[in-house]
């Protein structure tokens, strides 16, 4: 799945956020992109499922169900690609900033949470979110980040007893 979504990103990952512009070189139709996505996922499960015993219909092993399912999905993906309308909408560009800032700050949060603690990683997440929106200033960052972090610390580790480290 991961490998597939990266190929997809490479195909469509350039250009401006303006989806109206027709950039034929980097565009892929929605139908084909969907087919690629499903194909990648199906192939993934069918291939790696071969590691597990297939068994027979009478006594199915752990591999049978996902391998057959994966092959079915590959088949569906081919039919989607062959029968889908090619004239439908095309994907031309992906907004790099929100994707990187939102997912990046979530990833950073998950990596730092257990070392830095909630009190420091929460403001980082909020900062990342504000960067993604393109509207964040230092002032909104502080006005939003400080009370939100305080509320989160108060709510989760203290009130609800979620075992979370608060400080480094």
């Amino acid at each position: 799945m991961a490998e597939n979504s990266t190929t997809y990103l490479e195909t469509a990952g350039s250009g401006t956020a303006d989806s109206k512009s027709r950039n034929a070189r980097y565009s892929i139709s929605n139908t084909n992109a969907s087919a690629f996505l499903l194909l990648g996922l199906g192939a993934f499960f069918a291939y790696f499922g071969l590691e597990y015993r297939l068994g027979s219909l009478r006594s199915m092993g752990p591999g049978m169900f996902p391998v057959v399912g994966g092959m079915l999905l590959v088949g569906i993906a081919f039919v989607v690609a062959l029968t889908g309308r090619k004239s439908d909408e095309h994907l031309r560009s992906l907004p790099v900033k929100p994707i990187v800032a939102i997912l990046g700050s979530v990833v950073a949060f998950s990596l730092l949470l257990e070392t830095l603690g909630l009190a420091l990683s929460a403001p980082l997440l909020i900062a990342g979110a504000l960067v993604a929106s393109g509207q964040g200033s230092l002032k909104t960052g502080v006005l939003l980040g400080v009370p939100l972090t305080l509320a989160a610390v108060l709510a989760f580790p203290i009130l609800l007893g979620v075992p979370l480290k608060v400080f480094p």
Partner: protein
Amino acid sequence: MWDTGISGLLGGLLVAVEPINLFICFIGVVLGTLVGVLPGVGPVVTISLLLPLTFGMEPVTALIMLAGIYYGAQYGGSTTAILLKLPGETAAVLTCLDGNQLARNGRAGAALGMSAISSFVAGTIGTLAVVFFAPLLVSIALDFGPAENVSLMLLGLTAAVMVAQGPSLPAVGMLVAGILLGTIGTDTSTGIARYHFGIPELRDGVNFVVIAMGIYGFGEIIANLEEGLKQEKLPTARITNIYPTRDDFRRSWKAILRGSFIGSAVGFLPGLGTSAGAFAAYTVEKKVSAHPELFGTGVIEGVAAPEAANNAAAQTNFIPLLTLGLPSGAIMALMAGAMMIHGVVPGPAVMTTRPELFWGLIASMFVGNLMLLFLNLNLIRVWVKVLTIPYSILFPVIMLLCAIGIYSLNNSTFDILLAAFFGLVGYIFIKLKLEPAPLLMGFVLGPMLEENFRRTMTIARGDLTIFISKPISAGLLAATALTIFFSLVLPRLRRTRHRANFTNPKIEKTNA
């Protein structure tokens, strides 16, 4: 004692009015109204967020809260629709048409009041439908064996996909993809961990909350940010009188009743959620009206009918889940997951083995609807204030809550990483207009489907014809074939849905 709807319901009422359940139900419907009012926040994310908090509760209490969020959101969605012409919740699309016109004509209060009252009447009628039809279905499904279960799941999943989206092959693909994702983790029959790639956290499988929050939380945030943060202007008209006039009631009561029955019937069918009910009711109302040309210019029936239908459907949506164990959409898939987390396998056995849970949940819907009527008639000014919260403040809050909420599922930072990955995948789904609901349904039902299939094959010694040699199973498969056939020959349904979606492009993303 529990064998008829009424006595069951009375027993359930005793559970529902326990102080803790009343309190939790209240929290649920307040939260539901809140997320219904806010356009960028849906019930799927909210239910996923609150699920970890219910771990310590009694199962019935947990389900009462999560259900309250769902039907409460239907009430709140109309407020945004009427005041901003934006559906706060998917099903409120049709309320935008006449509701917003009424607001522009200075009758916002009447529209809001009518929507609350018709929602209440419809919610109550919908719950009554659950009371009477659920035991009936349970009695049919109770002696299903594994073969019948497989056929039933196939029927439910096919219907959910086909009926909701027309004959859409990519949607079937999403369903299979969900079933495949459900095979990650330890195989229950052999104890072998599949697709874990040495990552210990994956041995237990992927939590459905991680997928739901990734797709509906992070994925949607990215999509919303891409569209740009537009600050919606509230209409300046003051809401003076929330109660509709006697004339409004004279014109609407039939619309409310028709909407309630249409909504109840539509909500009961898998895949046809609340928005299909609202659409059908609005169309019918326009057809039977003496002045169909006035629809869209601000007629009160145009608010009453779709609001009744979506609330009735929100209640009857629970029937397939509670009786057959079949979730009919993303939210019901979450409810199914919530039941499993609390050790309750959704299916026909729930009514007999856990009557306090089954009837307590249903009875709480009456109580919850009463609370919602009060909340929406008396606190409307609060909800209007909520509307002024800009998305640029809202989404960092959602992000933080999602991240901490995911962590608290298993105290695992790996789950947050996984959710970020599903956020990317979910965003791509939105861009490709791939509906994520079938994936979630497949994910939740997949393990049950595999288990029942394997059991059937063991019993039948690998003979696949067992599915058509057993009469009930054959009947269910025939119904599956018919569903596929009708969804192919009835493209009309598909076109009307497209038109409904066209009214507001936001619906496609928030469709649950």
